């Protein structure tokens, strides 16, 4: 491990080589003059207290605590090389965006989450969202489905159909997508974990097969992220990290080969950040995971450009407006450098940091919930100015429940207002070139790389999970942030900043869950268990266990199980038998 160079070392060496080629944007004469005038201005025009407090650290929800100066000038980015550091959109180093014409060519996808009750209920919501102009659909699953228990498992009781849609077998997948043209619209399945991706995506593929839709026609995304399975969630049973990481890579390999238009991984920074971490750590963890995944897959002999055709990230724009804009710019440039210098990628597509964003749920308040519309709109705007590819805007009532239809519509409209009414999408990277924005972009890129370096020196992504290092880092951050809110250091309007004397929870319409979902799912399951060939089922499950033990890619065996109408819970059980379970170290 110590022999291997870290990403930071590799990038530093590459930069060193290109140093002689750098062409500074600002001429030294001009910089000298600016420096002179700046000192003069600083000493004569600026108040003593402003000089003393030149740097202020914004205290914001999920912020990175990067101190900001009072004013930025060319002196802060004195060695800027336009072509090397910024360039043109759709061109290296992709700081300004991955496409030359960005939103003029293709607006960001309005991609709202949907999922509650049973597949029958969610099918209706999908149709509603599509009818109102959503251009993609994200399906979220209920907790038992995410945690891989069947709706009739004792573990699932009381939780079926809440927070997402309950899905047990291929039958449910047929109901969920009934009447939805899955060969035409892009479907994001929020299968957070590598393990539930192998199970649930297998069911999706079998459903497509039964509808006669070839797998190469399917477009969409799964999440498939070890961080979600082993760090972000609280679970009763975890599979061991090294197996989950292997499975993450196996899923990628299988999907890349067999479902060529499908995005096989979305490195999910979002939920990690919501659990409690800064925008810098969010990206550093996702990149460290991505780097280790690519090392594993190239180590298996795959061409990096073949893999990276379909790799995507998922970020969480929160409240520090400029930090959010700059973070997307910084991440694009850093990802480009990693792909170019560490992995020697040749295809531009491999170097694109493509991303979906979702506005921050943790920044929303229960007090005065309409304020949340404003918060989400700023977050969404920052993501658009930063050049995101697709978006979900959180609804104002999410501190109460799953969004009502009315609240979900406001979220769609928020995005449409940005797209059609503000004019911001006409000009690519409109904030590029600002002294402040370029400085902050540099600063954030450096900090992300430093944190990647730290994790690589600790042994890489699996190691920092196994030791509980990440768990502790986010638990500490979350606690510290809570203290700052309570002490009024982080100000939240209506909560701790100009809080109304008598805070009454408003009368807002709150989503009411459909009744009887658990019962309905239970009945369906019972019928399936009676009607299917249970010998076949057992045989397929036994094969899955044996394959998992041998270290073969489990998704292929999950597909066989899905064809035989095995349930999600049965497949999870087969995997626990093979791999045993794991518990994250205590982290508080």
């Amino acid at each position, binding site marked *: 491990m110590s022999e291997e160079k870290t990403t930071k070392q590799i990038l530093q060496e590459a930069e060193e080589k290109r140093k002689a080629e750098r062409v500074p944007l600002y001429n030294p004469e001009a910089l000298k003059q600016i420096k002179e005038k700046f000192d003069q201005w600083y000493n004569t025009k600026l108040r003593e207290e402003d000089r003393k407090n030149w740097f202020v650290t914004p205290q914001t929800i999920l912020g990175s605590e990067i101190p900001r100066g009072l004013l930025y000038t060319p002196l802060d980015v004195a060695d800027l090389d336009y072509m090397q550091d910024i360039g043109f959109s759709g061109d290296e180093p992709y700081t300004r965006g991955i496409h030359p014409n960005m939103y003029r060519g293709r607006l960001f996808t309005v991609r709202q989450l949907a999922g509650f009750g049973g597949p029958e209920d969610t099918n209706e919501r999908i149709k509603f969202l599509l009818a109102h102009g959503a251009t993609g659909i994200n399906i979220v699953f209920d907790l038992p489905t995410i945690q891989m228990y069947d709706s009739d498992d*004792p573990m699932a009781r009381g*939780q079926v159909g809440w*927070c997402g849609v309950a899905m047990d077998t291929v039958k449910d997948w047929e109901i969920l997508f009934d009447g939805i043209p899955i060969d035409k619209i892009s479907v994001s399945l929020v299968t957070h974990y590598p393990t539930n991706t192998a199970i649930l995506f297998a069911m999706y593929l079998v459903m497509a097969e039964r509808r006669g839709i070839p797998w190469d026609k399917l477009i969409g995304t799964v999440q498939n992220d070890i961080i979600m399975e082993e760090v972000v969630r*609280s679970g009763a049973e975890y599979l061991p990290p090294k197996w989950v990481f292997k499975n993450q890579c196996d899923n990628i390999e299988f999907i890349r080969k067999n479902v060529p238009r499908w995005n096989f991984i979305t490195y999910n920074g979002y939920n990690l950040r919501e659990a409690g971490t800064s925008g810098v750590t969010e990206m550093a963890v996702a990149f460290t995971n991505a780097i280790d995944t690519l090392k594993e897959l190239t180590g298996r002999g795959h061409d990096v450009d073949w893999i990276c055709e379909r790799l995507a990230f998922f970020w969480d724009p929160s409240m520090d407006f400029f930090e959010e804009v700059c973070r997307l710019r910084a991440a694009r440039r850093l990802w480009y450098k990693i792909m170019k210098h560490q992995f020697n990628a040749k295809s531009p597509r491999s170097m694109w940091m493509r991303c979906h964003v979702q506005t921050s749920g943790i920044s929303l*308040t229960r007090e005065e919930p309409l304020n949340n519309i404003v918060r989400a709109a700023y977050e969404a705007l920052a993501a658009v100015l930063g050049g995101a590819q697709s978006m979900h805007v959180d609804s104002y009532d999410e501190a*109460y429940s799953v969004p009502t239809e009315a609240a979900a519509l406001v979220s769609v409209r928020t995005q449409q207002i940005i797209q059609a009414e503000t004019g911001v999408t006409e000009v690519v990277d409109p904030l590029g070139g600002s002294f402040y924005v370029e400085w902050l972009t540099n600063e954030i890129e450096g900090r992300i790389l430093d944190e990647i370096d730290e994790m690589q020196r600790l042994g890489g992504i699996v190691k920092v999970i196994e030791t509980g290092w990440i768990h502790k880092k986010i638990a500490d951050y*979350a*606690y510290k942030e*809570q203290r700052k809110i309570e002490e009024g250091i982080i100000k939240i309007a209506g909560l701790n900043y100009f809080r109304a004397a008598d805070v009454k929870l408003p009368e807002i319409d709150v989503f009411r869950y459909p009744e009887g979902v658990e019962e309905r799912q239970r009945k369906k399951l019972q019928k399936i268990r009676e009607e299917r060939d249970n010998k076949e089922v057992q045989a397929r499950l036994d094969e899955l266990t044996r394959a998992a033990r041998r270290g073969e890619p489990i998704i292929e065996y999950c597909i066989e199980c899905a064809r035989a109408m095995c349930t999600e819970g049965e497949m999870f059980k087969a995997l626990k038998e093979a791999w045993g379970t794991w518990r994250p170290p205590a982290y508080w």
Partner: protein
Amino acid sequence: MSEEKRIKVLLAKLGVEVHWRGVITVAGMLRDAGMEVVYIGNAFPPEIIETAIQEGVDVIGVSTLGGNHLTLGGELLELAKQKGVKDSMVFVIGGVFPPYDIPKLKDVGFDGIFGPGATQEEIVGFIKDAVSKKLGK
């Protein structure tokens, strides 16, 4: 406070609920307020009650954002009644609940109900107060 005995709290994520930020933060708050905290991760009512009795805790705190607050929450209090600990422990629940469920949570028997935005002062204050009033400690 010159308590001879520290308040002992058992915390758990209710059922298979996934979000742990809230419960971990509360665990930190209670510990900083001088209480003894036992956090058992995800658990169902039987395990929660059993552990609470074994550990001899004063307070049971459960966290859920996943919609199982009434079903499993109700089961927890029902079981507490059966095991005869309903009146000898303080029951607190935290998480995201629709407003119309809050009176129901009270009916079920939770002593304290906390939603997003609840502060350390509110939670710690409530627990201390409830322990002294309900348990006479």
